[in-house]
């Protein structure tokens, strides 16, 4: 096995270990039902310790998993993602943002009727629309990068 293949295998093993760790953490998260101590009263009702531990663990899991996943990719795959991130993400954001603004200016109600039209809901709509537009642009650009190199 050459160096590159060994590195890829090592990264895959680390990702597998992380997944096992996340499963163990989920068990802790579900079983630890006591309220989180020292929770500020102004933040509302304290969640269970398990939920806090699980949330923190999930954040660490995602960060490490992304790191090892990135290192397991070869250079062309990394290049495809970087290109798609820049061009697809930015163009998707611009096009999607423009579509949302034009729709809003023309009186189109983008929120479902059953959702209260509060400021919070409108901000959330903007965040979701921006993310969806970038993700769609990213996906299209990523496919385009590989299609052009087939």
């Amino acid at each position: 096995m050459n160096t590159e293949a060994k590195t890829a295998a090592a990264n895959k093993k680390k990702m597998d270990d992380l997944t096992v760790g996340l499963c163990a953490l989920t068990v802790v998260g579900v079983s630890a039902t006591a309220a989180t101590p020292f929770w500020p009263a102004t933040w509302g009702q304290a969640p269970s310790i398990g939920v806090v531990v699980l949330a923190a663990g999930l954040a660490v899991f995602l960060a490490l998993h992304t790191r090892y996943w990135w290192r397991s990719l070869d250079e062309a795959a990394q290049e495809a993602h970087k290109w798609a991130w820049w061009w697809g993400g930015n163009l998707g954001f611009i096009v999607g943002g423009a579509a949302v603004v034009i729709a809003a200016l023309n009186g189109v109600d983008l929120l479902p009727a059953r959702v209260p039209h509060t400021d919070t809901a409108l901000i959330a709509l903007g965040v979701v629309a921006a993310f969806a537009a970038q993700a769609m642009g990213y996906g299209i650009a990523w496919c385009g990068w590989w299609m052009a190199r087939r």
Partner: protein
Amino acid sequence: MTSDFVNRLKVFRAERNWTQADLAEQLGVSRQTVQALEKGRYDPSLPLAFRISRLFGRPIEAIFVQ
């Protein structure tokens, strides 16, 4: 979407009766990357070019020709 270089990867691979998957495994890249390289639609980094050079036992300029 073509490179400024032509390369002889496919020739050297065929001489050894390797499939694209065989070459990809030895280089530590995906088969899609080998395909893009062979078609001249992706230029390798310098480290990958050196790995290719070592694998075929030829200088880089014998594999990638401007």
